[in-house]
């Protein structure tokens, strides 16, 4: 298939060889799981179990709230021992509401609701089951999948794109999934296809994963699914980049893939859809790559949601070298883990322990305007110019030249010879802008309240005066009447 030209992109050192040949193994069930109520974009789920409750594996323990949310299920059977704050999988490590589940060791599933023929389900039914299973985008975005399915079904989808790009260095979880469970992935894709009824289905896989491409092609034989090898280049896994590579269309700025008749789902999400519908299993575990130069035996593990990252490292033989940094996600866009007790959530594709040599972030030097960042930017921005404006506090000008179009992929920072933390500048500026907008909203709200109060006070004073005037008039009228009757008497 003919591919379309892309702009920008970098070729980071892959280091996928550390774990690419390691088959997926199940992590032994940890004693305790820490399941956050918010693992997705949107509103947090609300716990529907109480401390002391016994739950079965796959049982609903927190229900989704509002139009964009996702429910949470028990990753194993056991007892709820706490509902409280626990450090979040976020660079701040701030505590978030989390259910603590003590495993009983039986790992007993609840009774599954399996349809006779999953491929005969109505599209709405598929979306409803995906929603009920708590499936979110497993590529890292963690957007509730059913919401995307519903929007797309209503607006119409021309092309369903399944993202097997996995362009982040180190990560091999999607690669292994496609190699080992291609049938399941393809079944999931067919279910999504049925749910949205697109004209064509394309699976984009980077050409550095030949085994995955071969496995997926074999599994897709006889279906409408077309498996396409795309060039290995970061950020190929950015959904909009993959869309451009495969069909040559761009998602309008500020818009959604649905605007151009495209729906993008990750391969791991497709597999979760298959498990949820064909096996009746909600999303309670995921495949996680444990890698990095400091990890003794990098590997790919199937991990129950809520497992502390420490358990994964321990299972991989611990640290062979002292890690300089622990990262959740890939090295290009992942977050630093402040502590290893942080739980694996639905969107966690990898946990990395990196050595100082792998991080390589020396002191920043002055920008020499080499424009490596301009060549690297997949969006077509001028990172050096944006950084120069942010440095002097001119955020409005930075927005004018495209700050809000930045996807924080890190390509510019990666190639910068002066080691300027460009993405850090942009995230900082975006944060400042959000804070300013919030402050402005607050100010406007305050101003509105103040004007309303003044108006109210004026109205009350006026009413009071009018009432007094009425009373006076009534009194005068009464006196006049009295006089009048006195006079006539």
């Amino acid at each position, binding site marked *: 298939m003919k591919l379309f030209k892309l*702009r920008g992109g*970098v070729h*980071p*050192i892959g280091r996928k060889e550390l774990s690419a040949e390691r088959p997926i193994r199940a992590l032994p069930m940890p004693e305790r799981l820490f399941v956050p109520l918010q693992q997705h974009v949107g509103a947090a789920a609300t716990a529907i179990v109480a401390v002391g409750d016994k739950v079965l594996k796959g049982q609903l323990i927190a229900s989704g709230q509002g139009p964009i949310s996702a429910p949470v299920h028990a990753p194993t059977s056991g007892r709820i021992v706490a509902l409280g704050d626990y450090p979040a999988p976020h*660079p701040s490590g701030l505590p978030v509401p989390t259910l603590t589940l003590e495993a009983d060791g039986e790992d007993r599933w609840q009774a599954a609701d399996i349809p006779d023929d999953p491929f005969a389900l109505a599209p709405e039914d598929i979306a409803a089951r995906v929603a009920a299973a708590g499936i979110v985008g497993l590529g890292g975005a963690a957007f509730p999948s059913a919401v995307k399915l519903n*929007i797309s079904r*209503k*607006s119409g989808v021309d092309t369903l794109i399944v993202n097997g790009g996995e362009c982040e*260095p180190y990560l091999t979880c999607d690669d292994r999934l496609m190699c080992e469970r291609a049938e399941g992935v393809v079944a999931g894709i067919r279910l999504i296809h049925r749910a949205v009824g697109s004209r064509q289905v394309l699976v984009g896989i980077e050409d550095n994963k030949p085994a995955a491409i071969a496995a997926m092609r074999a599994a897709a034989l006889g279906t409408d699914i077309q498996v396409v090898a795309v060039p290995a280049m970061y950020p190929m896994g950015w959904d*909009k980049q993959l869309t451009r590579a495969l069909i040559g269309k*761009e*998602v*309008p*700025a*500020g*818009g*959604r893939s*649905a*605007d*151009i*008749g495209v729906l993008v789902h990750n391969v791991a999400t497709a597999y979760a859809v298959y498990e949820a519908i064909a096996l009746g299993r909600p999303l309670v575990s995921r495949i996680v790559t444990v890698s990095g130069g400091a990890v003794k035996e990098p590997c790919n593990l199937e991990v129950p949601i809520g497992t502390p990252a420490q358990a994964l490292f321990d299972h991989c033989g611990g640290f062979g070298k002292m890690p300089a*940094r622990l990262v959740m996600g890939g*090295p*290009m*866009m992942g977050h*630093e883990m402040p502590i290893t007790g942080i739980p694996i959530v639905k969107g966690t594709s990898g946990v*990395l322990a*990196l050595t100082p040599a*792998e991080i*390589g972030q*020396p*002191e920043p*030097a002055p920008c*020499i*305007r*080499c*424009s*490596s960042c*301009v060549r690297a930017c*997949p*969006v*077509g*921005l*001028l990172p050096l*110019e944006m950084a120069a404006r942010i440095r002097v506090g001119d955020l409005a000008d930075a927005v004018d*030249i495209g700050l809000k*179009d930045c996807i924080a992929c*890190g390509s510019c*920072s*990666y*190639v*910068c*010879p*002066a*080691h300027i933390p460009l*993405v*850090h*500048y942009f*995230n*900082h500026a975006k944060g400042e802008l959000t804070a300013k907008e919030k402050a402005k909203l607050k100010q406007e709200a305050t101003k509105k309240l103040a004007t309303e109060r003044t108006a109210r006070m004026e109205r009350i004073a006026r009413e009071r005066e009018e009432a007094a005037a009425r009373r006076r008039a009534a009194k005068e009228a009464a006196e006049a009447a009295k006089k009048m009757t006195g006079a006539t008497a």
Partner: protein
Amino acid sequence: MSQAVHAPHAHAITSVGRIMATVILALVPATLYGFWLYGWPAVFLWAVALATALLAEAVALRLQGRPARPALFDGSALLTAWLLALSLPPFAPWWIAALGSLFAIAIVKHVFGGLGQNVFNPAMAARVMLLISFPVEMTLWTATMPPAPGFAEALAITFGGASWDAMTSASLLGHAKTELTRGVDLLHSLPGHYALQDGLAGSRVGSLGETASLLLLAGGIFLIARRIFTWHAPVAMLLGVAVPALIANWANPAHFLGPLPHLLSGGLMLGAFFIATDPVTSPNTAAGQFLFGLGCGLLTWAIRSFGGYPEGVAFAVMLMNAATPVIDRYMKPRIYGRDRKGGALPAEQEART
């Protein structure tokens, strides 16, 4: 801004120092060839330029209260001085090199804010300053006839002000201009003075490093292969000189030099591959760099053909340096999902939510 840990947690193996070192490496063959051609005076001049630049850089940083060590070792001052040295007449007195380096680093670079902040290419600005201020010393070309002067003679030439009259001569571009001014057209003035193989081999009159056109070309291609810069600016600059030269020479061979002598003469190769590609003073998009190079080339040809000076690379580059912010303002890449003007692309279908 906080110094929090930030993504990406990986970095390409690159640094400013590495880039500068690679560019210097690409200059080494042409420089060594210049040393071989002109002997010790060239070496002394080069050494004086480099030493002065380092000293000026250290003092300038000290005055600004900035740490000198990282900047001294990033190689940028060395590269500036190196380029300047290559553009000087090899038998020029030492103070020409010293003054040029001092001007390049202290005035053109640090007064504007240091590395990355200068508007003009320091080496070219220094060369222009020297050419305007000391026209005699800056046009003291020496015929290249090995054996070059010995060590003691060289000391006398560079540091003692001794002249080397016996061997002075005019460069090709200078000769053509002088003769044209005298009313002798190129058809009569060139034979005997110009041979293509001299231009290729560099065995002719010129600056220390710019006579070895082919070695400079090879260095430039090496740098493009190493992705230090792209082909846009150099190729555009060469085209900007060659195309008008071809047309003018075809129309009036008695008055206009052809493309080959233009390409192989003066500072064009040095300018195209090592000056027009200076990241600090050139535009930051590929299209902008092409336009910049084209402007440099056209201006070079125009100055050489119609101006008062026989050579125009330095002037042309400086004029285009001044145009760089304007080029950058108008030559921007299209942003994903937007049209050229920055508006969002239209949605193809109405998304009903």
